[in-house]
């Protein structure tokens, strides 16, 4: 029993799910759901369909080259069962998984960093241009003026005295 990868979106296809299409040149295509199958029949290129993993990897939106990704690889030469090897492998899998997730998250975070700068600049320019929508140019100036006048009067009075 194996969990396959969907040809179109690279999602896991569990046993009992999805569809398999075998072409005349003996190439096998597995699909996780009818959405992918229908897109495939429409001859869409998964590398250009934005929501698929193939697109994301080819457009550099996700981590592609990394040592932690090299652990999971389809091997053609079977290895004879050996209890300790298998148990060690399961332990190793868990560790590798955690490292991989960390690295993938960090990659995406780094990618989004530049967006933050742009956000900052946009906020500043927005405020500069359109402050008049929420605040009148001389919002507190009347009061200020009054206070100033009061102060001046008071000074005058003082001077007079």
């Amino acid at each position, binding site marked *: 029993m194996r969990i396959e990868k969907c040809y179109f979106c690279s999602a896991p296809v569990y046993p009992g799910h999805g569809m398999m299409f075998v072409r005349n040149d003996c190439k096998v295509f597995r699909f996780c759901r009818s959405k992918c199958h229908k897109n495939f029949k429409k001859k869409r290129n998964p590398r250009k369909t934005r929501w698929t993993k193939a697109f994301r990897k080819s457009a550099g939106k996700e981590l592609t080259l990394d040592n932690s990704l090299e652990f999971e690889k389809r091997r053609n030469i079977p290895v004879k069962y050996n209890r300790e090897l298998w148990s060690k492998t399961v332990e190793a899998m868990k560790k590798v998984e955690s*490292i991989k997730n960390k690295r993938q998250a960090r990659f995406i975070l780094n990618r989004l960093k530049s967006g933050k700068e742009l956000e900052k600049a946009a906020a500043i320019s927005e405020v500069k241009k*359109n402050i008049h929508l929420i605040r009148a140019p001389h919002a507190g100036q009347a009061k200020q003026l009054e206070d100033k006048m009061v102060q001046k009067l008071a000074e005058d009075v003082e001077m007079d005295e």
Partner: protein
Amino acid sequence: MALYNFKKIMVVPTAKDFIDITLSKTQRKTPTVIHKHYQIHRIRHFYMRKVKFTQQNYHDRLSQILTDFPKLDDVHPFYADLMNVLYDKDHFKLALGQINIAKNLIDNVAKDYVRLMKYGDSLYRCKQLKRAALGRMCTILKRQKQSLEYLEQVRQHLSRLPTIDPNTRTLLLCGYPNVGKSSFINKVTRADVEVQPYAFTTKSLFVGHMDYKYLRWQVVDTPGILDHPLEERNTIEMQAITALAHLRAAVLYVMDVSEQCGHALSQQLELFNNIRPLFANKPLIVMANKCDVRKISELSEENQKIFADLIAEGITVIETSSLTDEGVMQVKAEACDRLLAHRVDTKMKTKKVHDVLNRLHLAVPTKRDQKARPPFIPEGALLRRKAMEMDAPKRKLERDLEVELGDDYTLDLQKYWDLMNPEEKQDKIPEVWEGHNIADYIDPEIMKRLEDLEREEELREKAGEYDSEEESEDEEMQEIRQLASQIREKRKLKILTSKEKDTQGPRMPRTAKKVERATLEKEMADLGLDMTDKDDSHYALRSRSLVRKRKREVSAPPTSRTRSQSASRPPRDQSGVRDAKMLKKVKTMMKSSQKEMNRQGRKGESDRHVFDVKPKHLLAGKRKSGSTSRR
């Protein structure tokens, strides 16, 4: 060679049918419409065509008959003789000759009349000529009635002849009637020849096929032969004689030891000696049949002497019984072997030997030195052979185990696995963990690689890659962000209100709209200005002026009646209402009836207008990960 053609001879129609067919064909296939006012060459051509067409048809069919029937000189002499016996060679040749003559006559007739028709000067003349021509052709054919009938019968009989191949291996059975030839052929082959107690049950030749030493053999059953001279033999016997004469076969002369056929052994011996010349150059076996009734040893002295003489002459005598199958196989084997040897001998003497010699002669290479070179047999083959011979006790099979355990048996193939630690054979192997296939991670060097990875990860952590960057933004930046969000919200609201305004109708200038004091003050207050006690401001004057209204005089009473009526009539929401309680009830009824309308934002009862027939948020959008049955 000629075998297959016998079945493919064209049907010979009777004279009447023949004429009918041809004439009706002429009528159908040639044009039928002609008028006397046509041009004469056209009329002539029309009738000439008919004559020629009829002639052509006759010619074709007769030629086909002539070619289909076998020429007695061309076929194998066995068939030639057989046909002679059955159908009389002379009669056959005569019939075909007649047909040929008829064909030529028809051709001549047609030629003559076509020539005459060239001089026909009217439709009537040409038509008469055509009639005459066709009539003569048909008469010629009518005279061939007998020949055609005879040929048809010959054809039918020919097609039913058994397909005897004169060149292949054959066994021929002969002897008196009722001695057991047909029973023998029934036993040895799949043929189903009639066996009855009366003489001449078998009236013609029958063929059966059998297999021996991976070869196909023909067994020919003949009708019984009686003992008279050749000239006095009837057709049926002649068939047997023909077969004997022409087929190069092994002869099985069948004798009835028990004399149940009605003829004494001495008579059978007489016959044997009479047809002896026919057995020259053929392997001969004498079958002493019906030995279940009486054996040779039970016979009288003279009879036993007969057989002794035969054996002394070198002829094989085998006792057989078709009933008990005694000796049948022996006869078969003996006859076939001897015939094969005979055929090989004959082939060796002919010129074609060299083609076949490689099949008859095994070439062995000559030794060039004294070194022994035995054939190489691999050891495994030798062991296997020894094991087969010895019948060694086999290892315990799964099947044996199954039988032993009965219901408790489960097929456990894991016990045959070849692992490094045999105690792990019964382990349940995990295949999947959290959506990943374990088989994809299995690698003998996985621990080493994992160590490298962890080391790398440590280095990265040390380098500070994973530090969470909490940007401590200064207060200014936070304030700016807040202001920016407020600005955006305000803009959106403004856009929405501007979308909601009514764009139909004339566009009035801003001054036509009256600005409420309260809204103005509220807006300005939102923008941060101080709007308290602004009663004296310029924009508040208007409202003041509205308060100070001019005092009006009491209005004059209405002059006309209608005016007075309208003045005296009570307003609608008070007419019919008796008291305050009823008024209150009426008012609530009015309000509640309007509730639903107002809730739906309708202008009135009759407003059924739907603003958004196809709301976008329900119908548009991409298909996210969900099923297709609902959006």
